[in-house]
């Protein structure tokens, strides 16, 4: 059972890293970005190319799996996304779905439609034996990396100037502008980091989640669930939501094989009936 717990935590942490950026862009710019998974996919495929084709070590490829999607993110934010901030949610949905279709078709064209794998270093294969129970080394690595990321995010948000500017802009963009905060730059940086984190999550998750051109479509619902259940007014909300969902999904699939996939959907619907603004958010949310 401990294995399931660890698996669940790893899965949950991965979900968090993948989805937290979506929560930020929704809370910050009121932007529904269904194409968030595209950046995750970009990071994953970047890692595949770097490790498999160019022979880079995994540890070097990971930071690049952050940088590449972040760069793509900045470019897209400045050229495309900023035109749709003011548009209705429906138009944002349609726009980002269009981006997803384009991205999926492009990757399919370039890399083919089969699932791809990253050649993991030998050191990460196998398990540690803790009190006689096997805990996957790779999953442990994920937990460690994601845990550090969460801490880092918390520190940035709470202790740095950028963090307080970001929080101010999320709370009330107009007032923030009035206080001299360059909200546009905050948006751009937040979007870049959001995309970068998604990319990192995509690279880390390729082993566990499976990476193929359909990734943004397959996992869209999971990111949305994390944001809907966790809310957009904090980092801890989506974090706790991801853990809850990760553990519930893994446990559900193990204990109820036929119905396991439904656990995550059921939780989402139950939460949204009871508290439409999310389990962990304060206020009315968006």
């Amino acid at each position, binding site marked *: 059972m401990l294995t399931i717990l660890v698996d669940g935590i790893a899965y949950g942490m991965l979900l968090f890293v993948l989805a937290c950026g979506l929560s930020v862009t929704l809370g910050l710019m009121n932007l529904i970005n269904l194409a968030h998974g595209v950046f995750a996919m970009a990071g994953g495929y970047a890692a595949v190319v770097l490790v498999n084709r160019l022979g880079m070590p995994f540890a070097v490829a990971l930071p690049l799996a952050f940088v590449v999607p972040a760069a793509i993110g900045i470019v897209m934010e400045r050229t495309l996304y900023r035109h749709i901030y003011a548009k209705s*949610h429906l138009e944002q949905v349609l726009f980002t779905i269009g981006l997803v279709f384009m991205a999926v078709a492009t990757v399919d064209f370039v890399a083919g439609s089969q699932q791809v794998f990253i050649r993991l270093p030998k050191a990460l294969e196998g398990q540690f034996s803790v009190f006689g129970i096997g805990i996957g080394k790779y999953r442990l690595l994920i937990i460690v990396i994601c845990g550090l990321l969460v801490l880092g995010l918390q520190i940035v948000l709470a202790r740095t100037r950028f963090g307080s500017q970001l929080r101010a802009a999320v709370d009330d963009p107009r007032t923030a502008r009035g206080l001299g905060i360059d909200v546009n730059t905050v948006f751009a940086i937040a979007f870049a980091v959001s995309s970068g984190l998604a990319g990192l999550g995509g690279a880390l998750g390729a082993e566990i989640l499976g990476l193929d051109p359909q990734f943004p479509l397959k996992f869209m619902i999971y990111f949305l669930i994390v944001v809907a259940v966790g809310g957009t007014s904090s980092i801890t909300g989506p974090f706790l939501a991801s853990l809850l969902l990760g553990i519930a999904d893994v446990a559900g699939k193990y204990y109820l094989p*036929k119905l396991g996939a439904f656990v995550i959907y059921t939780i989402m619907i139950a939460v949204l009936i009871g508290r*439409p603004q999310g389990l962990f958010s304060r206020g009315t*949310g968006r």
Partner: protein
Amino acid sequence: MSAPAYPILIASVAQYLGRRARWRSAEYAFWAIAAATLVLLPGKHLILTEIAILGLFALSLDLLLGFSGIISLGHAAFFGLGAYAAGLFAKHGLISEPVLALLASGLLAALLGFATSFLVLRGSDLTRLMVTLGVSLILRELANRFDGLTGGADGLQGITIAPLLARFAFDIGGHTGYLYSMAVLFVLFVVARRIIYSPFGLSLGAVKGNPLRASAVGISVNARLVTIYTIAAAYAGIAGALLTQTTQFCSLDVLSFERSADLLIVLILGGTGYLYGGLIGAILFKLVQDWLAAVTPQYWQFWLGLVLVAIVLMGRERMGAWFAAARSLIRRE
């Protein structure tokens, strides 16, 4: 200048309200052309049937999106339920007569719509997107899991549809199928049109425009939304059943996210809020899709995405001019 007398005013009001609902000449023209295709384009009946079904499906979403302000990313759930229901009714001989099976499938979809309508009453746009997407994905998972019943990824095989009303057999050329689809579409369209111009339809417009004010004049907003959601679900279910009955096949993609997304594209192409948007959008969408599929068979999804991005970027203002023209032909402006 004295004000007009009472009886004259009352007559003016009655005339104004009556005029809202009157059929415009552009509408007669539209349906005349549609009827003409039954006779004049026999070679195209198969694709025209697809267009009619897609148009009905889009009409059902327009009832939500364009008239009630409910955004849904999972309308395929009702379409798919209707499709599978019709397939199973036929395959297992539960209801052999197609029209009865059609109505039964619509009823099942309506029940699902009613059961899930409570989920879209509260919450933000994002919540509604989530919940509707979630329901359709759950349904798709269910269809996938219970493959003994549904055929799973291979689809429901071995469906044979009995002759319509025990007399008109479905033929290879799709002529019966097209006539059938057009008839169903027309009837349901007329019903939808009555609903829109009724007091109920007026209250929907109020709910969409200002739900706070609507409840402040005594309208039970939730009850109205549940009603229209159920009706829209029934329409979508009937469209799905039509698909199964005219193609004698049904597979998992009737429940896919792509279906729901395609529908949004149809409505953005044709416009929402004047009932013909779904029909016109369906025509445009099918033509574009067919053309793209012929040009780039494998990657037409890319161009579809590009069209979508371009339309949104181009913006409502430029599309608005075209919509305003279409609208003014059809609705009071």
